[in-house]
């Protein structure tokens, strides 16, 4: 059979690649999508099981997935196997690279927290003089957020805040419990806004490319989806310098195969797309490829508190339960003393405090837990990490994956800006919780290693200047005009908002631009 030349070869079927296929295929553009993983069968591959019947009870298999702190006894099989997909880092500077290699990618498992960025991020340099602005502003992306949110059925409450623009929401008018109201009053007094969590509700709480994007793309008849296809390099026509396809390896047989396309779209996830480009020796005339790696730092259970009025069996739904979100409140109109940018807070109530933080054991601990049951209140801090040239990935020529593809090496660490922000978060929260009438049982400002948030961003950033950026404002390579990168690697800054709504909106915008360019014969 002669090799088919597709209009577009898309690498990756997660949120970013899935959105590209959704836009392009429905416009009549012939797409081939390659994904390194198999397609899960949600009926066959999942089953209800009792924790005591799992091989290691409530523990995950010892020794596996040392960098995936999210892995547990039930979900250990969904994460990319670290022995087949190794990576390295500098000495003790651990990076927790959490990957999913399945059709649908991480969107099968994300927590669905859905936010927009604002001009505090897009025009961050204008605001505080650090780093670079994006080559686009909020008004460029707003129409795409408007289209993405209804597809993902994002629920939330409109607030009219500049730092967290409202979206096209399923309006969440559910009442707040007394506990949440108390926190809100104390937070507002400290200048901290509080709203409902904004979350994609999808279909049956699955808000994935797997059920919301790929089915429509396939139904158009214009998408061919190949699973178990591990992309190794983007290939280039020597005469034109343009991309002409992708070389990939069949995951099981390890046969190397070529796919041809008039354009190539990478949506293999932030760092996998960058790895693919580094391994292809492409799109790096700026020298910026791989650099400006950042994510968001997470401090889970920054405070672990209890609401005294709910202790001793008094917890009920009216009194306590539910959670919410505080968007960035630092460095908007005033200046914090020892850091720039800001952090967001995700809080929840109605649980039981972590027994680890209660300095007791035996019957005494059990009776304390009984007393506290349902009265818990805890907060996770999610802080902006500055995009810095010194934080980067490169190719480790001595380490390869199970398919012989050279692996990534990470050089990344947090800086004083992040540490000072973390210290501010814990002291602020401690005070707010006290003012809300809660008793703080434990607090800390220790962030997880970089990568933990699963919001890795940058390394292939956008910009107007080809000397300092990899992509232009359309997610298009400055160097190779028919090559687009539509995942989080294109981010210039990330704020403290979870990134997926922005990834989806950027991918939609870039794909519409690509479709138009193909139609006009510009590529």
């Amino acid at each position, binding site marked *: 059979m002669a090799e088919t030349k597709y209009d577009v070869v898309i690498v990756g079927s997660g949120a970013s690649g899935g959105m590209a296929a959704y836009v392009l295929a429905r416009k009549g553009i012939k797409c081939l999508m390659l994904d390194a993983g198999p397609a899960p069968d949600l009926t066959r*591959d999942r089953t209800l099981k009792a924790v005591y019947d799992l091989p290691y009870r409530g523990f995950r298999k010892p020794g596996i997935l040392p960098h995936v702190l999210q892995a547990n006894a039930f979900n250990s099989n969904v994460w990319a196997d670290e022995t087949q997909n190794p990576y390295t880092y500098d000495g003790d500077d651990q990076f927790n690279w959490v990957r999913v290699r399945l059709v649908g990618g991480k969107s099968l498992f994300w927590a669905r927290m859905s936010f927009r960025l604002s001009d505090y991020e897009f025009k961050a340099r204008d605001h505080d003089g650090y780093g670079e602005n994006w080559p686009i502003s909020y008004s460029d992306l707003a129409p795409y957020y408007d289209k993405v949110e209804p597809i993902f059925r994002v629920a939330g409450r409109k607030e009219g805040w500049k730092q967290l623009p409202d979206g096209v929401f399923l309006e969440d008018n559910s009442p707040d419990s007394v506990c949440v109201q108390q926190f809100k009053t104390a937070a507002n007094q400290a200048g901290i806004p509080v709203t409902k969590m904004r979350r994609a509700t999808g279909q049956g709480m699955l808000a994935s490319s797997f059920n919301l994007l790929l089915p429509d793309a396939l139904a158009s008849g214009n998408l061919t989806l190949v699973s178990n296809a591990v992309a190794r390099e983007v290939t280039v026509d020597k005469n034109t310098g343009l991309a002409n396809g992708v070389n990939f390896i069949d995951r099981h047989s390890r046969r190397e195969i070529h796919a041809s396309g008039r354009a190539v779209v990478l949506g293999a996830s932030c760092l996998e797309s960058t790895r693919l480009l580094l391994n292809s020796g492409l799109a790096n005339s700026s020298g910026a490829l791989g650099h400006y790696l950042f994510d968001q730092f997470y401090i889970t259970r920054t405070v672990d508190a209890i609401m005294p009025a709910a202790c001793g069996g008094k917890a009920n739904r009216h009194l306590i339960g539910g959670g919410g979100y505080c968007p960035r409140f630092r460095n908007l109109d005033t200046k914090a003393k020892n850091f720039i940018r800001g952090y967001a807070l995700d809080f929840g109530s109605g649980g039981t405090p972590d027994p680890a933080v209660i300095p007791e*054991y035996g019957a005494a601990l059990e009776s304390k837990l009984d007393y506290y049951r349902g009265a818990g209140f805890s907060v996770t801090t999610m802080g902006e990490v500055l995009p810095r040239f010194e934080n980067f990935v490169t190719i480790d020529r001595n380490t390869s994956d199970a398919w012989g593809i050279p692996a990534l090496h990470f050089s990344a660490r947090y800086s004083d800006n992040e540490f000072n922000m973390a210290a501010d978060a814990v002291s602020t929260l401690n005070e707010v919780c006290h003012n809300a009438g809660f008793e703080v049982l434990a607090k800390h400002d220790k962030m997880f290693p970089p990568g933990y948030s699963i919001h890795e961003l940058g390394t292939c950033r956008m910009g107007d200047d080809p000397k300092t950026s990899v992509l232009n404002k359309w997610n298009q390579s400055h160097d190779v005009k028919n090559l687009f990168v539509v995942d989080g690697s294109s981010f210039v800054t990330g704020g403290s908002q979870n990134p997926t709504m922005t990834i989806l909106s950027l991918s939609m915008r870039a794909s519409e631009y690509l479709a138009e360019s193909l139609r006009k014969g510009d590529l």
Partner: protein
Amino acid sequence: MPLQRRKFLQVAAAVPAAPALLAQQSAPAPPAPSAADVQTLATTTPDAAACTTVPGFFTDPQLAALRRLCDLLLPSVNGLPGALDAKVPEFLDFLIGVSPAPRQQLYRQGLDLLNAISSERFAKLFVALDPSQTDQILGPLRAPWTYDPPSDPLANFLREAKADIRTATESSRERADSAPSGGRRPRGIGLYWLPIDPLV
């Protein structure tokens, strides 16, 4: 692995031959049963069949100390099965035995320390101490919580053991069986992902 694969292929290759052989014989072949007709056989797990784990990792004094520690840290309270009822010592003997070396070392060293300190202070092994004596040795568990693990090896071991004993107890069949019914899902039931198209 290649051998297993070859064997599988041989078996698989042999399958289509069976109807052909039957066809050569004069009697008409009985219709092949459809998958739906074949009865699923009821099997169960070793624990459900009330079989017990054979400990093999810890030494006898270590295991005796672990048993005592389990009983002290998570006893049966208000009729809820405690760590000993949930056979946690035997389970941890298995789990730690298949864990990476640093974890094995943490447990072995921690249990040895419990015995060594008990012998030094009270001239008895940990298992034989009375409650006021164990209370002194387990003092670090009443120290205020800090995010960073304690630098003292015994305190560090006790902190890890406290968490592990709780997880193993709470995810035991005994705890699930003792839970009041009436929730949407029986206690301890979750959505388990099987391996998806693993490499062969």
